[in-house]
Each structure stands twice: as C-alpha cells, then as structure tokens.
C-alpha cells in the first residue's frame, strides 16, 4: 500500500493570502500614522523629504520591480517544466533582494554620518516635525528592509528546493507562495517611494 499524500493547492494559497492580509494591516497602520503626522506637519515633512536621495530611491524601486518580474517568470518557468530557467530566475530574484539591502545600508549609513538617526545630534536642532519624518522613515523602511531580508532568505531556500526538485512542475505552490510574499514586499515599496523620496 502506498503512502497517501494530501495536497490542497487552493488552501495553501488562501493561507498565504490570509498571512498577507495581516501584513497589509501591519504596514497599513504605519501608513495611517504617516498620513496623520504629515497632515499635522506639512512643512516639516516637505523640507525633510528633500534630504532623501531620489536617485537611490528610484534605483531601489527599479531593482524591486525587476525582481518581481524575475520571480513571476520563475513561476511561469516551473509551470512549463523548465527547471534550469526557474532556478536562474529565483536566484536572480534573491540577488536583487541582496542588492536592494546593500543600497539601503549605504543610504542609512550616509544619514547616520550626518547624525540623522533617532536621538542623533543631526536631528536635535531641527523642528520636531522633521524628527518625526525621520523616525517614520527609519521605522517604515526598516520594517520593509526586514521583509526584504526575510524574502531574500526565503527565495534562496526556494532556489535550493527547485534544484533538489522538491519544487517542480507538478508541485510548485511553495515557490508560488514565496513569490506572493515577494510581490507584497514590492507593493509596500511602491507606496514608500512617493511617501518618503518624492515627498518634497
């Protein structure tokens, strides 16, 4: 008698979406905090937003959008039974995640250098609204960065699973759910770009 293995493709995806809803609400709460703070401190947010590097923000946007294309194509590839292409695309997605984090670290590093960090000397002489802007900037891009880190690790694991054929043409929901998580990270960044980098 052979072992019975139960698979619930729809159930697995709905479970992932339910988790993503909690992520919507987690970031949604922060977006509400941002909107309220900005409505009360419009000038401070305007002048503080000017100090963020638009080219770096846009570069990271293009990196994440491209990585989203890669992981979506990796799923198409595995559906078509093209293991090698799927493996390459999954690896490229993780590489984009790492590149995003390198840029983010460089960006935070530059701000730290100017004393711009919570309770830092660069923020002490400024209006309270600007300190609030940078506080939200660190909390929101930091929490997002943690998600990028988690997604990068997750996609690296997926690349290993694809290479071991644990993720394959007739069973790829793990890769699909990891892709959903990665796209969510991209969607959150889509909102962070105009709120912080294009705020000035």
């Amino acid at each position, binding site marked *: 008698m052979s072992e019975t*293995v139960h*698979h619930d*493709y*729809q159930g697995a*995806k*709905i479970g992932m*979406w*339910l988790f993503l*809803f909690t992520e*919507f*609400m987690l970031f*949604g709460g922060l*977006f*509400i905090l941002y*909107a*309220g703070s900005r*409505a*009360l401190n419009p000038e401070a947010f305007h002048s503080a937003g000017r100090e963020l590097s*638009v080219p770096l923000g*846009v570069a990271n*946007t*293009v990196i994440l*959008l*491209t990585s*989203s*294309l890669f*992981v*979506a*194509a990796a*799923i*198409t590839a595995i*559906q*078509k039974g093209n293991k090698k292409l799927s493996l390459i695309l999954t690896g490229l997605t993780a590489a984009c995640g790492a590149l995003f984090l390198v840029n983010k670290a460089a960006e935070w590093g530059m701000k730290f250098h100017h004393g711009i960090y919570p309770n830092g000397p660069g923020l002490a002489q400024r209006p309270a609204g600007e300190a609030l802007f940078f506080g939200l900037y660190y909390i929101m891009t930091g929490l997002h960065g943690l998600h990028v880190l988690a997604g990068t690790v997750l996609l690296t694991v997926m690349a290993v699973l694809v290479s071991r054929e644990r993720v394959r043409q*007739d*069973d790829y929901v793990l890769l*699909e759910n990891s*892709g*959903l998580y990665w*796209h*969510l990270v*991209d*969607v959150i960044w*889509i*909102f962070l*770009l*105009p*709120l912080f980098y*294009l705020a*000035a």
Partner: protein
Amino acid sequence: MSVREQGHTIEYPTLLKVWGALVLLTAALVGASRVSEAAAVWAMLALTPLKAALVLYFFMHLKYEKAVLKAMVFTALAVLIIFIGMLFLDISFR
C-alpha cells in the same frame, strides 16, 4: 503521480509588458513630483494604486484567481481604505 489542481500560467511577454508599464509609471511619478506640489500629490494618488494593482492583478495572479479569493483581497483592502478615510475625517473636523 497524482493529478493536481494547478494555477494559471502567465506567458513571459505578458509579464514583460507589465514590468514595462510599472517602470514607465514610476518614471511618470518621478516626473510629476518635479512639476508642482499639486501634480506630485495627484500623481501619487492616481499612479501608486495603479502600480500596486498591476502587481496584484498580474504578478500575484489575482486576475486569474477564483471570485472568493478576489472578494477576500478586496474586503481586506476596503477595510484599510475605510480606516484611512476615518483618519482624515477626524483630522479635518478636529
């Protein structure tokens, strides 16, 4: 090997077109932010949700999902939008 339920396959050219649209919309968003304050705000309110919708609909396969899943996603987003609306009501009538 058992027959399993599988998802919809989106062809590579479709994915590339969606990516192209996302990059163009990002360029438009950055461009509008340099025109004027009003243009920046309107571009943000119009283009950002459009970009998010493209990712949700195509990259996240929502377009091809069953009605029940679509309804779940729209309910979750509607709740968030209601909360944001309530915040602005509170701020403007303070």
